[in-house]
């Protein structure tokens, strides 16, 4: 630094004669360029928050949001939804007994029947969800406890899963497939739905188990190793099933090779971890009947047959079964409609308040005032 300074002044000092003779012509011209950028004169739009610009924005937003909110609210209200808690906390609950005895490895499964009635018929496709409460699928240690490479069918990851899967990485010195806490805690209750005819006979309602996962998940993110879905038993040889599971991954749906192993849709749905501790996941779809005359689920009595495998009582969890129709905006969601109406009306009112304040107290700025 010192030398550069020194140098600079020397250069200055070297033209003592030049100042006298006005040697401007010989000197290099250091005059800055006259560009809009360098002179900070770039053409610009300079908006000002005047009443004329701000107040209409409030009114417009209010006027747009309130109708949207009303629309959402109405749509949401038209959606039929039925939820039933089958956890079996109460003594009176049909699943009480099952909920009391929980053990992952019990060979005999406990079943219970939960009767319920639908007051209204459900038209169109009906979606069946299972809902869990107080279940922390979003816990950091839980979320990271998976190996996406393994789930994508990577063979090396199959044999030696990622460290993230600990402590569900291996059992009996064999790698676990699929590894990790998420897979280990796969929801394994079986829900079946029966319609009770007025004459007392039970009709099983057909539940579609495919098409419940995202297309990308099913076709890109999850893949069985070697891509061959036929002899999964061979493929998964040398791996161990997750400790909590009753059957191995290749036995999830032996009937349908396209829904077995890692690409089992129930499994995929479970692996997409929920954002909040109370969540619902799509379980089955009840498709609209071919003849449009009868509703998909007519009103009347139903029985939910639960194969109760999934213990939640230990952490005060709840399990629910939810039946719902959907609309263009998805499922029943009154929050969004109400929120829109609220925000819209707040904006509108704020607009009114601001308008009155502006007219009563606002200082109309003009030039006369400044250059006093």
């Amino acid at each position, binding site marked *: 630094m010192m030398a550069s300074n020194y140098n600079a002044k020397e250069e200055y000092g070297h033209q003592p004669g030049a100042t006298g003779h006005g040697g401007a012509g010989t000197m290099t011209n250091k005059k800055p360029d006259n560009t809009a950028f360098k002179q900070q004169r770039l053409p610009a*739009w300079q908006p000002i928050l005047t009443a004329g610009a701000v107040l209409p924005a409030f009114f417009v937003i209010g006027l747009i949001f309130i109708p949207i909110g009303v629309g959402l609210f109405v749509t949401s209200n038209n959606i039929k939804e039925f939820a039933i808690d089958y956890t079996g906390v109460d003594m009176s609950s049909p699943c009480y007994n099952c909920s009391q005895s929980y053990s992952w490895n019990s060979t005999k499964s406990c079943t219970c029947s939960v009767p319920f009635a639908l007051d209204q018929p459900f038209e169109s496709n009906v979606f069946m969800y299972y809902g869990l409460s107080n279940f*922390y699928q979003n816990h950091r240690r839980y979320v990271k406890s998976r190996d996406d*490479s393994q789930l*994508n069918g990577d063979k090396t990851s199959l044999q030696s899963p990622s460290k993230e899967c600990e402590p569900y990485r291996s059992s009996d010195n064999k790698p676990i497939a699929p590894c990790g806490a998420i897979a280990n805690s796969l929801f394994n209750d079986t829900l079946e739905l029966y319609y009770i005819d007025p004459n007392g006979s039970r009709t099983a309602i057909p539940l579609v188990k495919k098409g419940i996962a995202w297309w990308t998940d099913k076709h890109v993110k999850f893949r069985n190793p070697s891509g061959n879905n036929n002899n999964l038993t061979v493929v998964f040889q040398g791996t161990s099933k997750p400790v909590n599971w009753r059957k191995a991954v290749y036995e999830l749906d032996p009937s349908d090779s396209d829904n077995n192993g890692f690409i089992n849709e129930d499994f995929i749905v479970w692996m997409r971890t929920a*954002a909040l501790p109370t969540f*619902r996941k799509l379980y089955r779809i009840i498709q609209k009947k071919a003849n449009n005359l009868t509703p998909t689920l007519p009103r009347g009595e139903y029985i939910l047959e639960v194969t109760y495998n999934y213990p939640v009582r230990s952490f005060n969890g709840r399990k629910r079964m939810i039946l719902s129709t959907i609309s263009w905006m998805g499922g029943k969601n009154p929050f969004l409609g109400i929120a829109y109406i609220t925000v819209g009306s707040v904006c509108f009112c704020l607009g009114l308040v601001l308008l009155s304040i*502006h007219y009563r107290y606002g200082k109309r700025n*003009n030039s006369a*005032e400044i250059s006093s």
Partner: protein
Amino acid sequence: MAEKWLWMLMPWRGCWSSRGKRDGQEEERHVRANDRDYNDKFPYADNHIKTSKYNVFTFLPINLFEQFQRVANTYFLVLLILQLIPEISSLSWVTTTVPLVLVLVITAVKDATDDYFRYKSDQQVNNRQSQVLRGNLQNEKWMNVCVGDIVKLENNQFVAADTLLLSSSEPYGLCYIETAELDGETNLKVRQALTVTSDLGADIAKLADFNGEVICEPPNNKLDRFTGTLYWRDNKYPLDNEKMLLRGCVLRNTDWCFGMVIFAGLQTKLMQNCGRTKFKRTSIDKLMNTLVLWIFGFLVCMGVILAIGNTIWEQKVGRSFSVYLLWDEPIRNNNVVFSGFLTFWSYIIILNTMVPISLYLSVEVIRLGHSYFINWDRKMYYIQRDTPAEARTTTLNEELGQVEFIFSDKTGTLTQNIMVFNKCSINGKSYGDVYDEFGHKVEITERTACVDFSFNPLSDRKFRFHDSSLVEAVKIEEPSVQEFFRLLALCHTVMPEEKNEGDLVYQAQSPDEGALVTAARNFGFVFRSRTPETVTLYEMGTAVNYQLLAILDFNNVRKRMSVIVRNPAGHIKLYCKGADTIIFDRLDPSNQDLMNTTSEHLYEFAGEGLRTLALAYKDLDENVLEEWMKRLLYASTVIENREEGLADLYEEIETGLMLLGATAVEDKLQEGVPETIACLTLANIKIWVLTGDKLETAMNIGYSCNMLRDDMSEVFIISGHTSSEVLQQLRSAKEHILGLSRVSSTADVEKTDEFSDDSVFEETIIAEYALIINGHSLAHALEPDLEQVLLETACLCKTVICCRVTPMQKAQVVELVKTNKMAVTLAIGDGANDVSMIKTAHIGVGISGQEGMQAVLASDYSFAQFRYLQRLLLVHGRWSYFRMCNFLFYFFYKNFAFTVVHFWFGFFCGFSAQTVYDQWFITLFNIVYTSLPVLAMGLFDQDVNEANSHRFPSLYRPGQLNLLFNKRQFFLCTLQGMGTSFLLFFIPYGAFCLAVSDDGSHISDQQAFAVTIATSLVIVVSIQIGLDTYYWTAVNHVFVWGSLAVYFAILFAMHSDGLFSIFPSHFPFIGTGRNCLTQKSVWLVIMLTTVACVMPGLAVRFLKTDLYPTLTDKVRCLQQASRKLRPQEQNLRRVRRTSSRRSAYAFSHQQGYGELITSGKNMKVTASTAGPSPPLSPSSPGRVHNSRSLIESTLKRKGETPVACVSAEAYGTSGTSEGNTRTQQTLMD
């Protein structure tokens, strides 16, 4: 050992760490001329200079070491290390690494380029040529010059190293040097070689045989001191500073000289003086650091809250939830508190984005941009000297918008240091004004016709005069006019130099004198040559030889100088020029009438800010003179009280003078100085003038640049000689101001209330005072017990002028204000004597003027003209401050909105430090998605355009009051950020509790949630920056829209099948963007969130501008309105000229030059000297010795701090009483 290692690592620590070490070793320097082997025995530095820090191999380690010395970088490194611990890593290490590496690389590149330029300039200096005696004379590069070498210097060459002068082309071994680079003084200085060495002359053989040994002090940084001894031929000769030529000096008026190198390279006095400039930081910087600390504190608080939450959660829920989620090993073995401890660190990691790495980098980039805008500004480019403004530091820009005090040098800063003979009054007639045919005064401009001096072949072509009547008067040989110019041509201490016939150059000791002699020269009374006993004039073309009988020299007490000459006709005359008050006291009573008219003219001249001087003569009788001369001779030989005796004698003969007239010399102000000062004053900036000049000169300039005005209530002059006197004067001044304002305040209250903040020109209403303080009083006033009184009094005054101030005192005054007023100070100056204050003040500005470059080199900003200061502060400074504040406000807002979402999420994910967003989003948010729009705002935003910034100086006020970004603003922006984050989290939360996509599948999964919040966040902050931007250039548009586009592009790229198939474990978000952002409900959520986040802020802002519009808001409205019509004319009030009587014998003159002339020691024997040249008096050794002591005594006197000037004080007190009566009158009115 450790120290040595450190030294190796950091060679740039510069000269002083090494200096300290070598000082310990070198107590005495032994140098033998022409003896390399001997000198090499000592570890003397060679003349090679290295200021670059790195070389190719050391760059990386040193630079990294340096960078990690910064707290911020180290902090992020620690974070990075934390992230590598699997138990607590809540984010992948990539998120910190990418930005950190980016920051390090950018900084390293900048450092490398800087260092490269340093290296290049080192090379340039080192490769300079100089002539070195190595057996014979040969050219050598500077870096090869060694201690003990004998070098030859030629006229106008730079001295390569500190050398001992051996011999020169001038008689007596004299040589002249200009030391502008060292101390800023442009006048020539004399150096004289020892007689023994000057006899060596230019004889190469003798010089090569010269083997004297110098033993002297070790290297130090004292420019004015040198002690040593020369041992040669068994004799000892003492050496002092008057025999040294220091590196950086320029040889002038000397054809050649030889010297012996004593100190070289880094050990030269110049280099030893280049202390590292203190690293200056802006107040925003300091505030920012405080705020960052606060944020850390806040972060720790949040971490603790969440850690406690985690402990409780793990205890209550996690324990039972372990059915599905086993505890990790450490927690299982120990307890939940340990889990909480780990969570704390995890949260520290994810919440660290509240202080993003990019903050510091962005601030640097913005400042750099602002610096470039300053460099590029054509309106601060001075065409005459081809100098653009230069921001020499890039770290202080926003502080330019907060300046409250300006400390200005006078000479060269406010004034051009050019004296112009402007007007005169001769025998009661005033010359210099130009009148048109109707008798109206014509304003003199560049285009006014100049007087034609072609009749005079010896005239100076640069001299301009507009009143042709004076030339007419000279031509018709009006006696008084002739006598007037004769006096000017005779009575001075100027040295003429005539290289070619008719090409006269005057070496004037003060510019005033030069101006007067030049005026006489042009009007036909050419001072052509002088000897100790004679002065030769060319009067209207004919040579006239005057015998110089005596010079009655100038000093501060006498305030006048006289010469006694005998003209060819044998008449003896005394010519006297001096301060009008002094001269008028010594006039013959018959001059009464003339005195009155001249006095009137003087009033007029002084009113225009001219420096006036009265001229008088006296005819002397031969006998009287003879008798007087005898007494003079006697008086000058006595040893005791010689000065007093001489003064009495002078006093005795300078009586009964006949008035000739008066001269008026304009101390040319820099262009636009009064207007600039007026404008800056309106911007509520207080301007203090600190000058080394005399009180009268300073006041004169004060009046001419409108800092002092006649309508000021009172001008206080402090000139006490003791502490108690000074205290007394300060106290009374203060009481006076306070007492008076108390009286007037009741009347003013309503007035000021009415106009309060709205009035742009409110400051002009309040009564104005000025304080002028003299150097010796200042020395007392700066003592610890008085400085508070000084400060209080000075701050009550509109104008403060300190005169006769030493460089040290300048720095002390600045320091006083800086430490006690908590205000931003700016020092502006052009000379080496201003360096100390430039370095002390928050901001130092150097005028790249004529007095060397020292000030510029020490400064933070430099430009060529004082008036550019207005633009620098009111436009660039204000913009910089505004931009930086807006930037910081937005930046903190943005990062709080971004980060605090994790906090809210913590309550729903078991306090497990799970991130809300995708890791890639966290990595890229600050450096890609949101960096450019905020940078564009920080670089280009303008609230008010430049014309209005000048027009309404009060717009500067918010910066001074620090209104735009302070702790309150910070609190507000964090609050806004946290509010936004709250809405950002809870609106999607409410919506996603039950959300199901339109194909029935669930979308309330974590990834969809993350994408929704992230998208909302990016949109919200983009809209927010849109609202914060006042000035939407194309660049802003491109950046804002581009950032949004880039966000979506990257989002879909990251969520694409392709990337996933390559790195399945790094891009787990595959398909989320597609599945999520195709849902209408998701977009409804995003829209709702955006509106909910933006509208409250908008409403508040609208209310603020609507109900309590700031001046900025008003000016903006005005600006928009006027743009629709047409640009308005500027209506800044014209600055009034003052019309106050100022007596100003304003010579920047030093005593002793008369003596120098009569001794004849500074006269050259050159054959080319035209005119009759008397034989030079034989130079006997005694005479030489005498002359040397004379020069020495003269130089010594020059070195002294300004002499106390008694009459100045008397003048001052009279001024005060004058002022008193005037105020009393106004009070009575």
